[in-house]
Structure formats: C-alpha cells, structure tokens
C-alpha cells in the first residue's frame, strides 16, 4: 500500500520519464528557491530540446544556466535575462529561442494551467511587443490582452519542508514561483530540506496541498547568493 507517500529514493527516480523535447516548469527567482539538484539531474541526464518555463535562467554557473553550455534548452520562457551573459548571448545569436513574458503574466499563466483556466485577459503588455499577434479586447473602457496558460510535462519545485504526503511549506522569498509551478506540471517533482510525517505540519499553514505533488525528495542545497548586500553596523 503506497497510499499518499510521495517520497522517492533518488534523483534519478525523481526525474524518471523526462524525455527530449518536453516542457519543464521551474520554480525559483534568481537563484533563490530554485530546485538546484533537480536541475543538476537534468544536466546529468543530458536531456535535449527542452522548453523551460521559469522567471529567469539562473547564472552562467548556477541554476538553469548550467543547461545552457550543452544546449539542452531549445526554448526559454522567462521574464528576465539580465545577469546571465551566456543566456543573453544565445538569445541574441538566435541559438536559443526566448519567449519573454512579463513576470506577473508568467506567474498567472502557471497558476491558470493548474487551475483549469485556459486563458485570461490582462492589461499587462498591451501596446507592447508582448501583445503582438494576440487578441486585444476593450473591457469596461480599457484594453486587455488575452494570455494562455502554460502547462508542463514536468514541474520542478523547491520547498522548505514537506510531509510524506507532499504537503509543502515554503520559507521566506524562496516561495516565489514554486507554488504555481507545483500546480502546473503533469508530473510535479519537489525537493525539500526536510521531510516530516503527516500530521506534523499545521493544516492551516500548508502552502501547497499534497494533491499537486507526485514525487518528493530530500536534498541538500548550496543556496548561492547573487547579490550579497549587507548594511554596515557601527
């Protein structure tokens, strides 16, 4: 009886079934709250032709950026390019297809996919290159653009704690895109810092119910800081 136990034994098992040309939705903002070991596993597997949906593409050395040198990413759907020279280079040279998507629209597209909303109107991007070729509609005197949801074959997520049922709790701004990503994968894989028994998380404080989670693994994390800013104390 497996019941609701989502824990898998290895990173190989966590990413089993990932194939060339699939779409992967990834949580994280910058290098904060990224599923770093799941990304490393994708690099190790050498899967090619991926479409990756994530706010950014990590740096040249960390996060999703490590999939760039071997050209594992065919297409990137992201809101931000800055601070990753290789990403910008591959984009400018046309080696990598990039679909720039406003950050809020990207978050909403993931949420919509998980929530069975195939499309929604938003004012974001009206009159900009983002809206080209998309339906524009005037609703109550304002123009909106129709945006469609994005579902992934896989979603890769980093949470802080989980119980074995896959109920998730995130920590501070490492939450970011992770809860939406978790809802948007046909197979949702989550790595966490700690796994506890069911009943040990307060039901009122669970951020992502386990119904969205297919596989769960405990990892250890580098948690690289991109901009280490400190205040001086006297």
């Amino acid at each position: 009886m497996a019941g609701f136990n989502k824990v898998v034994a290895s990173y190989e098992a966590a990413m089993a079934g990932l194939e060339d040309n699939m779409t992967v939705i990834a949580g994280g903002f910058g290098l904060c709250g990224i599923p770093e070991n799941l990304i490393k596993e994708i690099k190790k597997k050498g899967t090619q032709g991926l479409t990756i949906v994530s706010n950014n593409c990590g740096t040249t050395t960390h996060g999703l950026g490590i999939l760039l040198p071997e050209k594992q990413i065919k297409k990137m759907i992201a809101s931000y390019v800055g601070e990753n020279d290789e990403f910008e280079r591959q984009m400018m040279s046309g080696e990598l297809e990039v679909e720039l998507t406003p950050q809020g629209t990207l978050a909403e597209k993931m949420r919509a996919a998980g929530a069975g909303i195939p499309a929604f109107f938003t004012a974001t991007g009206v009159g900009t290159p983002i809206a080209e070729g998309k339906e524009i509609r005037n609703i109550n005197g304002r123009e909106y653009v129709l945006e469609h949801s994005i579902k992934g074959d896989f979603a890769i997520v980093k949470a802080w704690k989980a119980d074995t049922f896959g109920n998730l709790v995130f920590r501070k701004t490492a939450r970011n895109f992770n809860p939406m990503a978790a809802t948007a994968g046909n197979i949702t894989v989550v790595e966490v810092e700690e796994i506890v028994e069911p009943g040990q998380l307060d039901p009122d404080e669970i951020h992502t119910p386990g119904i969205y989670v297919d596989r769960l693994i405990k990892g250890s994390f580098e948690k690289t800081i991109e901009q280490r800013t400190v205040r001086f104390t006297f």
Partner: protein
Amino acid sequence: MALSREQLAQRVAQELQDGYYVNLGIGIPTLVANYIPQDMEVMLQSENGLLGMGQFPTEEEIDADLINAGKQTVTMATGASIFDSAESFAMIRGGHVDLTVLGAFEVDVQGNIASYMIPGKLIKGMGGAMDLVAGADNIIVTMTHASKHGDSKLLTKCSLPLTGKGCIKKVLTDLAFIEIKGNKFHLLERAPGVSIEEIIKLTNGELVVPQHVPEMHF
C-alpha cells in the same frame, strides 16, 4: 547641477505619503528607501513576494532565502508578509500598490515607456515592469534626462520596444521633474542651478514651460 543618484532618490521620496504601499524598481528607485521621512510609515513591496522589505542585513542576518526583486539580500520590516509570485502580481495588477517607482530608457509625450530591451544590443527582459506600469495609477519614472551622447530620453515617440502604453504621468530626471498630460511634457520643477534653456535643449518632445518653474528643494 544635474541631480546625483542620491538626490533623485531624495526627490522621489518627497512624493511618499504616510501609509503608502510602494514598489521600488531596481537601481535608483531602490535608493528611495533611504529617504523615507522619519514621521512617515511606508511599506515596500518587492515583487518576488515580500511586502514590508526592511534594510540590508548584517553579516549575521544574511539569509539566502530572503532577497528582494533586485536579488539583493534584505531583511523584513515589522509587520511584513510573504506570498507567492501570483499573489504578488495580483496585488500589483489589481492596483493595490499606491506608488511605483522605476527606471526607463525612454519616455514619450503619450506616456509610453521603453525599458526592457535595445534591439541588437541589449536584452534585459521586462521582469515585473510591464505588470507594474499596467497595474499602477501612480508611477514615477526616474532616469537621466539624456544619454551620455546628449540624446534626449524624453521623446515625441519612443524608439525602443515599449514596456507600457500611455501609462506614465510623472518623470523625474537628473534635470527636471516633468508631468505628462494631453500629449505634452509639462515642466514642474528643475534641478537646482539647471536652466530652463538646458532642459528645453535636452527634451525631444513638446515641453510646456510655465512662467515660474521652481527649483527642487532637498
């Protein structure tokens, strides 16, 4: 004298009001946090999912799980809350943020703004900027008035791909504080010691200059 980055931040801070929820973009806007008047409470929204951004951490306080939208390590202010990116942009898109301050490459007389790419040269990405300019009523753009080569960034029509259409009403540059209405720039204030002639010369769109243009005070 053209305003320094710090002075730009100081002048923006004068637009704050007690009880404002404010989103500060990366760069100069971030500095505004240093000039919040003492007798005022303002909460800073960081679009990666934090309302109530505090000051930078001490070495001991640094936490990789707590950053702002500029990916800088930060702290939380008292009464802060954390949420996911969908909720963060629900807040922004839904018009709940009282003031948004962000940078730009160009602004034009129609209130258009360009800030996320220079074709063939630079692709930064829009991040949350398109959502911010679409969601806020009250936006201040901060930027230098002209490029290093002396080309005006205040234009009749933006030349770069737009971040938002018809959404900018106020621009603070290192030379002037300008309002956009009726498809014209209106000069509200000038930087201390900067002449109206210089502002006119460096503004490449119709600029309405009232009889009296006060100098900014700091």
